[in-house]
């Protein structure tokens, strides 16, 4: 009976029912078939009307990967971006982010148990910060979802749901592999009456990735991390339940690289970067009746990143940076089942955010108040209509209204059709508002956040002699508006037989008000002063296919493919009108670009595909999986001056990554595992800084569970 309570980390209704049920479908749910992120209420994956992906426990166990970025890059339609390359870019500084439907990682909201993780660097939240230990499942919603989640859910949402077993358990796992990888986890659960407590600890270490030993420095510097998690649930009565979740993360990487002094002599720099990340959330669920449940959530998170670099020869400080962010949220969500056909979800909350860094002046704060409503309607058993709206009111930038509408129609038992529209937005971040950064090293540019600069301030700076000339562009300086997206999805899934199913989804995302920087003034030295504007408009469009074929009880074959085209609208229009030229790589000749020459936005692969073969022996004795992931070439840097990607040498090479894992049960409690990753040894130091070459690992795990 307790096991039946398990899925209810965030879902009040289910938590209190003996048998979990899709509140509108009337059917009982299996744990590995349920998503909560799409509607904020638990729904069968097959009943969800927006593109959703669920990575369950079985899949996590089959692959035995360690970090979130490794897992996501094997999924259909998810492009895991790599931190920029070596040398002056400082070895993968911004880490790995997840691109959904071709939208930038800046636009992917990352949640743990429904609450956002903070600490983005250059817009990207580094996925390697998240350990795969202690995870029950990962839910991914593709396409704009701000109608439920507000800012950042502009391209999609990744929600990581942690484990809270229903019985006393003790688990331990250790893995070791190439590149000095060590990963160890211990976890335990205690169940006592109406209280459950789960504790886990993970240690992860990764050595340097250095594909260019002839050059000083690494593509990725060595790092190690500690992740501690604690989760407690308590049932005060069969109507009231308390959930506490705490996470603490600490990471340290040792940095080395080389720069040149005025005489071009190498100067070696070393130091370290330390991250701290703490999250604490509490939620109280009360069920007033079978029809009415309310949840109160309190969440706080703090993130700190410190980098200190020194010159190796004399220990002189070279660079230091301190970045601190805090985020607090209070939220209420009430689920009200009006009838068998109608369910209403209402919510409201307030956010307080604070940031201080060496790159801004003072402590910056923001407060947001928001409210949302969602109505789910089942006019017939085969039809559902979900509509939603959210309003975000912000202190420091323009407010935003985000609607959504999703339809699902199942004409037959086998066929399901879905269509949805969703709006998304991303608030201007603190960097875009408050940055005040003078880069002396790289050509001496100055970058001001939009709230740090105005015509008046530029005039003052001109009088002070800091600025020599104010450019006409400066007259466009204005309050930044959120970046916005509108996503359209249409999909179909068909169950050909018990063994074979396929689905397809077409998407189009329209993105506008994108924040870019532009030159507003010149310094006496001629160096440029930049600030931010809402200027760019782009779109991403494509199609995603998934196939699943169960050969027999033991073998399963899955495949996925995404075709994608993402382009800047203004560039696209100018190329179509024949206004854009390119310079040929071979002889420098200038030619007029055709649309077929334009490769679209950088960092997007036209084709991405994966194929996975999974084997599961009877009684779980053996387990094996082989996964092939393909990514076609993608744009990196412009090299011919037209600021777009149109030449072969502006593209990174496409590649296939082949990974495999095998596991065997040794007795009742022990399991041994081994795996090999990147078997084809694809390496690209400049464009895939964080991808190790061919590597393998072995591991051993122990699990005791009270029967």
């Amino acid at each position: 009976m307790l096991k039946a309570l398990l899925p209810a980390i965030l879902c009040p209704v289910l938590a209190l029912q003996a048998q979990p049920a899709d509140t509108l479908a009337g059917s009982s749910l299996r744990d590995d078939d349920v998503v909560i992120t799409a509607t904020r209420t638990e729904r069968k994956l097959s009943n969800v009307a927006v593109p959703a992906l669920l990575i369950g426990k079985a899949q996590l166990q089959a692959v035995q990967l360690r970090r979130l970025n490794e897992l996501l890059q094997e999924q259909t339609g998810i492009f895991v971006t790599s931190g920029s390359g070596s040398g002056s870019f400082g070895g993968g500084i911004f880490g790995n982010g997840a691109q959904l439907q071709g939208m930038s990682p800046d636009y992917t909201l990352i949640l743990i148990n429904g609450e956002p993780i903070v600490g983005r660097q250059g817009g990207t939240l580094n996925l390697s910060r998240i350990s795969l230990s202690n995870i029950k499942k990962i839910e991914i919603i593709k396409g704009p979802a701000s109608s439920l989640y507000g800012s950042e859910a502009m391209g999609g949402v990744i929600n990581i749901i942690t484990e809270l077993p229903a019985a006393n358990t003790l688990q331990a796992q250790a893995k070791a592999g190439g590149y000095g990888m060590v990963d160890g986890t211990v976890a335990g659960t205690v169940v006592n009456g109406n209280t459950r407590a789960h504790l886990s600890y993970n240690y992860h270490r990764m050595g340097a990735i250095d594909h260019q030993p002839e050059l000083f420095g690494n593509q990725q510097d060595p790092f190690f991390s500690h992740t501690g998690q604690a989760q407690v649930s308590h049932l005060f009565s069969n109507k009231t339940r308390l959930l506490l979740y705490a996470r603490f993360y600490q990471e340290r990487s040792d940095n080395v690289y080389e720069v040149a002094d005025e005489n071009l002599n190498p100067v070696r720099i070393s130091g370290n970067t330390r991250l701290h990340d703490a999250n604490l959330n509490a939620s109280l669920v009360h069920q007033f009746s079978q029809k009415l449940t309310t949840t109160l959530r309190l969440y706080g998170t703090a993130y700190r990143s410190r980098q200190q670099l020194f010159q190796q020869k004399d220990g002189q400080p070279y660079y230091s940076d301190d970045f601190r962010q805090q985020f607090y949220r209070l939220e209420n969500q009430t689920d009200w089942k009006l009838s068998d056909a109608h369910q209403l979800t209402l919510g409201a909350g307030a956010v307080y955010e604070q940031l201080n860094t060496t790159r801004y002046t003072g402590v910056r704060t923001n407060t947001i108040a928001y409210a949302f409503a969602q109505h789910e309607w089942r006019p017939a058993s085969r039809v559902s209509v979900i509509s939603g709206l959210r309003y975000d009111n912000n202190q420091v930038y323009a407010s935003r209204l985000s609607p959504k509408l999703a339809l699902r129609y199942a004409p037959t038992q086998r066929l399901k059709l879905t269509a949805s529209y969703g709006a998304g937005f991303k608030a201007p971040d603190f960097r875009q508002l408050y940055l005040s950064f003078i880069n002396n090293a790289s050509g001496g540019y100055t970058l001001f956040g939009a709230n740090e600069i105005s015509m008046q301030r530029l005039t003052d700076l001109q009088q002070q002699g800091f600025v020599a000339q104010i450019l006409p562009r400066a007259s466009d300086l204005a309050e930044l508006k959120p970046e916005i997206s509108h996503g359209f999805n249409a999909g179909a899934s068909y169950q050909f037989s018990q063994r074979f199913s396929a689905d397809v989804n077409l998407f189009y995302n329209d993105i506008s008000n994108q924040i870019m920087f532009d030159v507003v003034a010149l310094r006496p030295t001629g160096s440029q002063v930049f600030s931010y504007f809402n200027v760019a408009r782009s779109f991403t469009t494509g199609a995603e296919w998934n196939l699943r074929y169960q050969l027999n009880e033991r073998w399963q074959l899955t495949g996925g493919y995404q075709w994608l085209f993402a382009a800047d609208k203004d560039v696209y229009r100018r190329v179509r009108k024949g206004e854009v030229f390119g310079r040929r790589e071979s002889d420098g000749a200038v030619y007029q670009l055709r649309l077929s020459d334009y490769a679209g936005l950088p960092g997007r692969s036209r084709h991405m595909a994966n194929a996975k073969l999974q084997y599961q022996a009877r009684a779980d004795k053996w387990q094996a999986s082989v996964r092939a992931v393909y990514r076609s070439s993608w744009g990196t840097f412009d090299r011919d001056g037209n600021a777009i990607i149109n030449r072969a040498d502006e593209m990174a090479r496409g590649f296939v990554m082949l990974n495999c894992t095998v596991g065997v049960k040794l007795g009742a409690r022990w399991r041994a595992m081994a795996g090999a990753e990147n078997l084809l040894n694809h390496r690209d130091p400049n464009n895939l800084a964080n991808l190790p070459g061919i590597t393998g690992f072995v591991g051993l795990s122990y699990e005791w569970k009270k029967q």
Partner: protein
Amino acid sequence: MKNKWMMAMAVLSVAAASCDKSENNISAPVSVQTVVNLPADTTTGFSSTGRPIGANRFTYFSLRENKIIEGADTLTNKWDIAFKQFFIKVNGGTSATGGGNAAAFVANSTFENYTQINEADTAFKQDNAPAWAINPMPGGWYTYSTATFLAFPIPGKIFVIRTADGRFAKMEVTSFYRNGVAPDPAASPAVKALNQFFYQFRFSFQPNGSKRF
């Protein structure tokens, strides 16, 4: 420094790459001149914080003579166009010396296909500080990437120039880097700085006053 500049500026003449097809055939074929490594305030050192420093001086150029103009001649109308980093001035308007009447605008075309000035005379702009005939801002006729800290002339941007003495010329800048080779995007800022502002360009000067090239 003078000799160095002269040596750095190897001038190649590509004869009769394009020819005038005017019906009355009054003009001789216009040749295409290629200029390599014209220094335009190159980096001579770095500040204590690593910022590249140059001499903050323009390099003056005569299109008719196809050579760098120096010394007292830079105060006459002997030069047509001058370069300093991304700044370009023409010998006209507020930049005029010696009564120079130069003007210019940026056309969208390939160098080869731009065979005749069809634009109205009003298209020609003179320097009117702080506005310039050739806008020094990135995104106009060149791009500067804040991802790679590399600059490139935008392909398909042609300077159409009326010289100080009222003749016409077309010019295409092909690179800002020494020997026309852009540093690798991953190269250090110092390597990028030390190799930049060596202009590579080609031009056609029409001495007879016609607007055809």
